[in-house]
């Protein structure tokens, strides 16, 4: 066990913090009000090389691990960019891991460098209107044609599809009834998001206005064989490969945003004077904030441990799930307390914490519900019978 501060991690944090300082609270407040993808932020991240943090050096990336990526995402969220900033690049950080692991050399040469340079943006197409967490029952189908496939179906909650050039999309190629196991017969593509065949409708939502979420209606989208990732029928197992890292990253984002909320709350509690003294002198104010500090520290350690295991190739399912569950819960608590500490001002947009609270609902709900994580822990760790 070694808790010595890691020089490289500290320097990543420092560099990212400096970069994020260019995109201040006013910038994100404006984005939250008017929407519009934060292209300038995305570009700045690409220019500094952060988009390729996990991509192998051979394809223009830095070849670092999920530990480094989680420091990156946590620092972005903690800067006050929150989930708006994090989601703008989240998919590019680790979403293409199935391509890195299972793609051909030619595919990697073709797909990865433009992503690292920020010239192309990717989105992730798994969830559907009738298949949220029950992934194997998704209905989007890919039909074999000469030289490739044609895709039909619908996808829901696809982030950044308004601006994405390509979509990593999971489809069914063999009907579920004809498969030995429901997890078989699914195929993964990294397809061009050709808007002649895909209707992308933005979902108006509670928070994170500037990073769009969408419903996709796919009607005959042609995809060539060259854009199929790995073998036909094995898409589900390829996707699984990215689930744990995604949970670790989202946990880190929740910790970061929770810290941003806590910082604003403590600053306000120090400055705001009522009954002749700062409100932060009241135990009713300072104890909940102290509690949140403790909780966020614990959540960060959970996320670090999960990342450490992942980077060493160790099984980390329960760790990644626990980190995402706990970080989202305590991050939400920190945001709620930050709003409450501000009193009426907590409800005013100009104090920013209400935006954090709205954004913090994302890590609570996505990419997997807290209830399903509890099911996973109960079943896989505690050995209790499966309940669903």
């Amino acid at each position, binding site marked *: 066990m070694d808790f010595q501060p890691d020089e490289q991690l500290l320097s990543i944090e420092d560099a990212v913090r400096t970069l994020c300082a260019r995109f201040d609270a006013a910038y994100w407040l404006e984005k939250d009000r008017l929407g519009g993808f934060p292209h300038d932020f995305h570009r700045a991240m690409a220019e500094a090389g952060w988009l390729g943090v996990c991509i192998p050096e051979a394809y223009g990336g830095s070849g670092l691990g999920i530990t480094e990526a989680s420091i990156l995402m946590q620092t972005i969220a903690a800067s006050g960019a929150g989930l708006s900033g994090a989601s703008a690049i989240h998919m590019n950080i680790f979403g293409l891991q199935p391509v890195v692991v299972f793609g051909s050399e030619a595919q990697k040469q073709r797909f990865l460098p433009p992503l690292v340079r920020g010239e192309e943006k990717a989105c992730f197409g798994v969830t559907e209107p009738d298949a949220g967490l029950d992934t194997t029952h998704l209905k989007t189908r890919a039909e074999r044609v000469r030289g490739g496939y044609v895709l039909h179906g619908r996808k829901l909650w696809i982030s950044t599809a308004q601006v994405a050039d390509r979509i990593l999309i999971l489809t069914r190629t063999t009907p579920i009834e004809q498969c030995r196991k429901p997890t078989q017969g699914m195929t993964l593509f990294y397809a061009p998001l050709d808007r002649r065949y895909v209707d992308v409708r933005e979902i108006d939502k509670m928070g994170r206005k500037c990073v769009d979420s969408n419903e996709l209606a796919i009607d005959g989208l042609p995809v060539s064989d060259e854009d199929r990732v790995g073998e036909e029928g094995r898409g589900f197992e390829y996707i699984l490969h990215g689930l744990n890292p995604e949970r670790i990253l989202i946990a880190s984002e929740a910790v970061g945003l929770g810290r941003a909320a806590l910082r604003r709350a403590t600053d306000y509690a120090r400055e705001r004077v009522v009954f002749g003294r700062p409100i932060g002198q009241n*135990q009713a104010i300072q104890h909940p904030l102290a509690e949140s500090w403790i909780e966020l520290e614990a959540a960060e350690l959970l996320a670090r441990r999960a990342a450490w295991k992942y980077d060493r190739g160790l099984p980390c399912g329960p760790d990644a799930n626990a980190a995402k569950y706990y970080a989202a819960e305590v991050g939400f608590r920190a945001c709620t307390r930050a709003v409450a500490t501000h009193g009426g001002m907590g409800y005013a947009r100009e104090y920013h914490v209400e935006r954090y609270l709205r954004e913090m609902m994302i890590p609570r709900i996505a990419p997997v519900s807290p209830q399903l994580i509890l099911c996973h822990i109960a079943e896989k760790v505690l050995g209790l019978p499966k309940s669903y």
Partner: protein
Amino acid sequence: MTGRMESLDSDEKARSEQLRLLADSVAAFAAGRLPLARARRLRRALPEFEPAMMAELAGQGWTGLLIDEACGGLSLGFAEAAAVVEGLAAQLAPEPYVPVAVLAVRLLQAAAPGARRNALLAGIADGSLVPACAGQETAGDPDPERPALRARRAAGGWLLDGEARYVRPGSGASLYLLLARSEEGWALFEAPAAGLELGMEPQADGTALARLRARGLRADEALPISAEAIAAAFDQALVMNAVELLALSRRMRALTLDYTRTRVQFGKPIGSFQALQHRQVDLLIAEELTAAAVREAIGALDTGAAAARRASLACRAKIRAAETALHTAREAIQMHGGIGVTDEYDLGLYVNRTLALAPWLGNARLHRRRWLQLNPPTLDRAG
């Protein structure tokens, strides 16, 4: 109309004035005759209470509060009984007032009138008899489907079999009233203390619950009683049990408030810290909610509410009272720190009595389940 309203008003005023006088005299009596040192001394004594004190309470007229004047009682109601229960509970008197002056009295009153029944009631009123009622197998009401004790006719009388638990008082009862079921229905059977198979289950507070076994036990006379009357008597005892728990909550909170006002740390009373102030406010709110639930239940008993409403309100009072008392006990200890768990300090006496009384006649969970059965969710009251 106006005249009638005024007379109702003046009746109400007269009763509340009478209640106030009663509460004052109970408080004066408790201060003089029931010091906490006495409760401390009587822990684990045999019997667990002083028969002479039961006689003193009878002398005040309190064991006969609910008993008809014809049988030597005062013919008063549950509001008055609650004033006595609260005063005794606040000073931790181990005397079995609720089991005897409420539960036994209400069961006997519901039995068919007769010489023996009247004599038993008169004995409770004058303090010469301290009967314990036995009829429960599990916590809560006696289950009409699964009676703990069964009776059958035998030459010249009855034979009883079965096992009853949670019998109060656990020691010192002068006779037992066994609630048993025969082919003919429910009845009370009298059994002298001598010759009974009794086991004692010691409680945290130094009193005990008795476990009574009957194997071909002979009884001469059956006092028939309806299932509804049994249910009513247990509900009435349950509400009085809630009154006791509420009194314990109040004392534990008062002790804590005193302590946090006087205990100085970092140069100031610890009660000046918000973390402790707010917790005590939470306790006060829980206590007031309990008091409101208990008050409404007592009102329902005194106005003869229908069975379902009476039972629901009794459940609610007990749920709130038990949870508030147990929570207050935990918080009181926490706010006292180490001294809260010393035997020398009085808080522990209250905590231990709370542990003994909270589960009696069924704990909060049991009564929550019972409440739900009484009030099944419907569409127009979903959730």
